[in-house]
């Protein structure tokens, strides 16, 4: 592989945004037929590097050599013409168009100024067959799952006969089988000589699929390594710039014997088509984890406890009193907080500052007409910015300028300000870097120590095992078992239950 000429070389790339040096002196070398992982924490400059390469941003300094020639990419369209395409994390296609159209738009098959739909449909089927996908290409993209949408996005890059394919966090919304399918496709493309850039937060996947790794940190180039020369712990150390022992330092005194009055007690709660009837108890100062594969009903279960969906059957007791939660507002009044999984769509308001985003839930609780003085707001915002170690530590910064991990912390602060008794965290660690993950988990343990009850939803079992007292396992929209987290046996038990018993 090494004796081949590199397909793409980026050297000494600089990129500056007003006030921020996003990239300085970054290098990236891609060979044909390799999967190259681009690693770094949030804010390390991965996205910027990708956007510079694909012409979304212009380069301030540095050279890009593509197949031996110097190139200057001016726009995404330009990059695509050269054969450099990207599949972004949030699949950037138009769901209101058909599958065929999403593959071809921008380079439709034309004849006499007329789009040849039949031919395009035929080609689309062929392209998707290369990806082992057999679907009706004339249907709207919105009728398919995210996993299939991603495949369509890849098919789109195949159609432009891409030589460099960049996959930006392609697996973050896929379940296990879908990831497998994606990896099969990646391996196939690799064997066909494609140079693939793979960006992911999942170390496991990186090690499964990649050949080489380039590590970035704070916009700077750390190094380029062959996968076999870089053990995981070292990689993580390079990404965050310090040896990582912190993750393992989170371990709490497990209070498996806490009993007494349940603060939240669900009995036979269900919603048709969403979640089968379940019982769940949450005691004071307890962290209960919800484990299960994607689509197993974790979020659906939690939404009933917050009144985000209305339960069809069953009842809910809060501190021993029977309550019917019809709206989140009632849940908040009962001191339940819910930090949503989709922080972009359901959480942050990008155009507001950190302070304003934090104050929202508190203001909501007080009623919209009660004035909270600016001074009081500042105090609160300062306090929580410090407490959660939010970076930049400036509450007047617009939240859209923050990295994902820091946005998540602001979301957390928003709910902590309301001083809830029950905190429901839905995938609070998704798509954020290890440093921030660790901090969030530490905070959870601390809060539970202070008496807060936490319901923790996470796709990463590791995190649940580290923090939770009890683990409720879901499968196929049903709560299948409840396991007390006690020793290293637990992991095996939980996984067996998740996978389907036996």
């Amino acid at each position, binding site marked *: 592989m090494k004796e081949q000429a590199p397909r793409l070389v980026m050297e000494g790339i600089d990129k500056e945004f007003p006030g921020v040096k996003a990239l300085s002196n970054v290098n990236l070398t891609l060979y044909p037929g390799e999967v190259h992982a681009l690693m770094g924490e949030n804010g390390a400059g991965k996205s910027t590097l990708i956007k510079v390469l694909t012409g*979304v941003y212009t380069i301030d300094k540095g050279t890009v050599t593509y197949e031996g020639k110097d190139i200057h990419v001016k*726009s*995404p*369209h*330009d*990059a*695509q013409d050269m054969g450099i395409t*990207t599949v*972004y994390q949030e699949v*950037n*296609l*138009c*769901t*209101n*168009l058909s599958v065929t*159209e999403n593959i071809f*738009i*921008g380079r*439709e098959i*034309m004849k006499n*100024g*007329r*789009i040849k739909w039949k031919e395009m449909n035929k080609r689309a089927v062929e392209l998707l067959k290369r990806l082992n996908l057999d679907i*009706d290409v004339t*249907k*709207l993209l*919105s*009728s398919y*799952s995210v996993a299939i949408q991603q495949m369509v996005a890849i098919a*789109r890059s195949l159609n432009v006969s891409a030589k460099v394919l960049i996959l930006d966090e392609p697996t973050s919304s896929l379940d296990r089988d879908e990831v497998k399918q994606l990896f099969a496709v990646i391996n196939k493309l690799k064997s066909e000589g494609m140079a693939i850039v793979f960006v992911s937060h999942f170390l496991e996947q990186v090690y499964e699929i990649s050949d080489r790794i380039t590590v970035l940190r704070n916009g700077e180039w750390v190094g380029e390594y062959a996968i076999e020369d870089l053990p995981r712990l070292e990689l993580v150390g390079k990404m965050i710039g310090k040896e990582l022992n912190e993750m393992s330092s989170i371990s709490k005194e497990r209070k498996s014997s806490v009993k007494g009055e349940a603060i939240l007690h669900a009995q036979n709660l269900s919603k048709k088509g969403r979640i089968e009837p379940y019982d769940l108890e949450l005691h004071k100062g307890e962290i209960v984890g919800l484990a299960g594969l994607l689509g197993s009903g974790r979020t659906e279960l939690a939404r009933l406890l917050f009144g985000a969906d209305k339960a069809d059957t069953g009842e809910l007791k809060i501190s021993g009193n029977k309550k019917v939660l019809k709206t989140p507002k009632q849940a908040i009044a009962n001191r339940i907080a819910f930090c949503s999984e989709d922080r972009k769509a359901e959480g942050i308001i990008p155009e507001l500052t950190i302070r304003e985003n934090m104050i929202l839930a508190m203001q909501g609780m007080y009623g919209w007409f009660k004035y909270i003085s600016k001074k009081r707001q500042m105090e609160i915002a300062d306090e929580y910015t410090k407490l959660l170690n939010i970076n930049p530590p400036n509450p007047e910064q617009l939240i859209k300028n923050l990295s994902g991990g820091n946005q998540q912390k602001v979301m957390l602060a928003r709910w902590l300000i309301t001083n809830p008794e029950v905190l429901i965290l839905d995938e609070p660690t998704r798509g954020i870097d290890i440093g921030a993950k660790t901090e969030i988990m530490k905070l959870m343990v601390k809060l539970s120590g202070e008496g807060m009850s936490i319901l923790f939803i996470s796709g990463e079992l590791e995190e649940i095992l580290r923090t939770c007292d009890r683990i409720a396992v879901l499968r196929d929209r049903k709560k299948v078992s409840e396991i007390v987290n006690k020793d290293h046996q637990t992991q095996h038990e939980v996984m067996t239950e998740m996978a389907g018993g036996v």
Partner: protein
Amino acid sequence: MKKLSLDYKQLPLIATMSLFIVMFAIGSMRYTGFLSTQVFLNLFVDNAFLIILAVGMTFVIISGGIDLSVGSVIALTSMVAASLTMNAGLSPWIVIPISLSVGTIIGLGQGYLIHYYNLQPFIVTLAGMFLARGLSYLISVESIAISSPFFDYMAGTRIPLGGGNFISISVVIALIVVLFAVYVSLFTKFGRNVYALGGSEQSALLMGLPVARTKILIYTFSGFCASLAGLVFTFYMLSGYALHANGMELDTIAAVVIGGTLLTGGAGYVAGSVVGVLITGIIQTMIVFEGTLSAWWTKIAIGVLLFFFIVLQRVIVLRTKPK
């Protein structure tokens, strides 16, 4: 099941067409003389300008925008045409291109502002609406009646369709515009880019589509349609007047929405908008046939229909959302 979701998208269009047929049937049963080819054709004759406007507006709304300036552009075009013909005494061969360029230039400017300054289409075209209306008054506050052989010909010519039925030249113009627009929307890159833009502008950009060009062209085309509709309206009224087509932008939007185009963009059909116009037309016709009802009942009926259709759209959007 999945097949259904596709049909859901077409449901508004199907609903519109069925509604039209039902209304025509009711009209035919209730009123003598309603069931005739000419009554049907008159829907086109009396609404040719609205059809043209709706075609342009359909593109705008599918792309996720709105164009409030079209009514005023009609007035301005009629004033320009009237004053150039009557006051300056110019030949129609000069008057027509100048009139058509009025809306085209306004549309181009609006599109440019909307894209390059990242402004809300609502506010930009609202400004355009005031500007165009104001300019019409600048030409004259009085109505200018037109009498020229060319305009008389365009207004008065009846194209016989046999059996004593006829259509006007304006109808032919409108139908050509419709056919052209249907073709563009289904079989050209520009047409498909409009849909992509309405689906997600961000995605369209990252897919490498020419967002800037498409967006500006959409508003330019809408402006052109408004001017063309202005000319057709002038043939219809044989006068230029600054008060012409007051509020017609809203009638147009109503017709497009009733025709099944999603106000949020991304879905809709040119043909649907035509049916939308015909429905507003048939309501008027029925009220005329009724004889005792005031013309304001048209507004009431359209209001009720609009409510019905936006609720229907909402339901469809909710149903088709994954999860």
